[in-house]
């Protein structure tokens, strides 16, 4: 069953007089429990596509159905609700609140979901445990390593049990050993039934995915399935 279906998506940025065509007509269908890598050279439009898929940005034209609903017909609050309930976003630079502890960062989506604080603490500790940071829950981001920060960010993305996790170069700021640890974590999450879309530069990381979509200059160059390799631990 397809979760995401986009057709003819374009994105044009206006830079002064100049128009930047970041996406020039993308068609893509993504099914439940797929593990997909988006690859391509710098500037090819990977992040732009991810932002649109994550309902953080709107396309200039084209159709986007998320779980059968047309995104273009939704207002700001409905999009916020989708981001909160259905989508977990993981960024290259973590994007954690620096003043808040790991626990508070992971808790925040539940706060915006309107969950009571009693229920929140169970769920937060559950995912923090899942990413292996139980003993770091009260640490601030600057008291954590890069890998640990990314684990917090992944826990935050998972906490509302979203149907899809979007990760824009989640290992981009990490060394290869830590990258493998993060990839193992993402694979485990995928094994639990989640759909995962990940942007990466590195073939070494993309080999763990089931499907690779390659972009260049805002169009899809290729879309291939493969047998994923196991993450070495």
């Amino acid at each position: 069953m397809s979760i995401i279906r986009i057709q003819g998506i374009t994105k044009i940025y206006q830079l002064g007089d100049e128009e930047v065509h970041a996406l020039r007509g993308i068609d893509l269908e993504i099914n439940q429990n797929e593990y997909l890598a988006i690859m391509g050279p710098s500037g090819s439009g990977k992040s732009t596509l991810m932002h649109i898929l994550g309902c953080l940005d709107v396309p200039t034209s084209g159709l986007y159905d998320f779980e059968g609903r047309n995104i273009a017909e939704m207002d700001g609050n409905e999009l916020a609700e989708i981001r909160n309930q259905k989508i977990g976003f993981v960024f290259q630079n973590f994007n954690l609140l620096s003043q808040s502890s790991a626990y508070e960062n992971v808790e925040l989506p539940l706060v915006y979901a309107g969950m009571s604080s009693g229920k929140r603490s169970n769920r937060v500790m559950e995912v923090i445990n899942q990413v292996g940071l139980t003993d770091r829950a009260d640490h601030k981001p600057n008291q954590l390593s890069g890998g640990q920060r990314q684990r917090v960010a992944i826990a935050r993305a998972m906490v509302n049990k979203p149907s899809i996790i979007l990760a824009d170069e989640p290992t981009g700021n990490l060394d290869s050993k830590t990258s493998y640890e993060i990839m193992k974590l993402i694979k485990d999450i995928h094994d639990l039934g989640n759909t995962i879309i990940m942007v990466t530069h590195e073939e070494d990381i993309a080999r763990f995915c089931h499907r690779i979509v390659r972009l260049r200059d805002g169009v899809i160059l290729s879309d291939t399935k493969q047998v994923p390799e196991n993450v070495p631990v």
Partner: protein
Amino acid sequence: MFLFRLFNSVNLSIRSLFSNLMRSGLTLLGIIIGVSTVIAVISIVNGMNDYVAEKIAVMGPGVFFVEKFGIVRGREDWLKRMRWKNLSINEYEALSKQMMEAEAVAAMLSRSRRITYKDLYISSTSVRGATANYLSVSEIAVEDGRFFTEFEEQRRAHIVVIGSDIKKALFEDVDPIDKIIDIGGVKYKIIGVFETAGSVLGNSQDNFVVIPLKTYLVYYSGLYRRSSWTIGIKIKDPDRMFEAQEEARSILRRVRKIPSNKEDDFSFISPEAVMNFFEEFSGIAFIVLIGISSISLVVGGIVIMNIMLVSVTERTKEIGIRKAIGAKRGDILMQFLIESVLLSLFGGLAGVIAGYLLSQAVAHFSPLPSAVKPWTVFLGVAVASSVGLFFGIYPAWKASKLDPIIALSYEH
């Protein structure tokens, strides 16, 4: 559900306020000054109101006084009244003979003199010569002994009723009744002691003695620079104050031969007149000082708006993150509004405390009284949070409409 979201927002706001505590404190100065002046002014004016009302009650209902000066409003007024003819026995006799509305007409004169008992003395006491019906125009009662009679006044008796300060100073362990004291070189026998009246704006009202008016005229009135009489009138029906004053006015104008085109050259003092004057005065004080505090509140509000705008800019990335994980516009708006309200609420509370201390200090170091009423605390807090709410709207609105992607890619 709404309350629940509100509670969450308050919680989030408190977290971020405390992480910027230093800056928060400094920005609140305007609010603190504004609220504390509001509280202090209201407390002092209230205190004076209570106090004047209480003192007026001492004048008694249905009593008014005829005086040369009355309530003087400024220097011009004073110079004009200086030229008026003194009130004398003529006016007193006319009023006491002719006034139909009056139950009693009393006259009094006063001078400061030294009072001596054995080797103790008070260097300056108000010596009042009064008619025997003095008590009917004064609210003060005789606590020990008695007042003098009409008969004693007529035969110019050397007897005196003393205020409680005199008793305290000269007769600590002795019963003053029947003791002989010296007032400005003349001997008097004490026949009574007044109850304690308390003090008005820091001046004791109990440092006085009353002797018969005729006795006073013999020893203290002086040949030249005679002083003007004060005439106290107790009216039969307290509801007819206006009519009684009109009657007194026409009698006085006739006695003093004032042409009909000239204004009165004497004054009435009644509880109403004093109260009116005071209310007018405190009204002006109110307006001036409320003006000052409004200015500081507006300045304080603008400072808060500015600091919130800085805060929104500094925290653009945070706002982007919050939006990316599902915060709605309303959530962000609420967070920043609550932050600015809380910020100014702290300022308001600090202002209430400062205002309270200020008015206590004024009450302590000056004769002005002060009464901090509980509702002024609510007022201060309410004023401060409204300022925070009002001046927080624009920054909060700005924060809420940030585009998530632009906010996320913001670097400082």
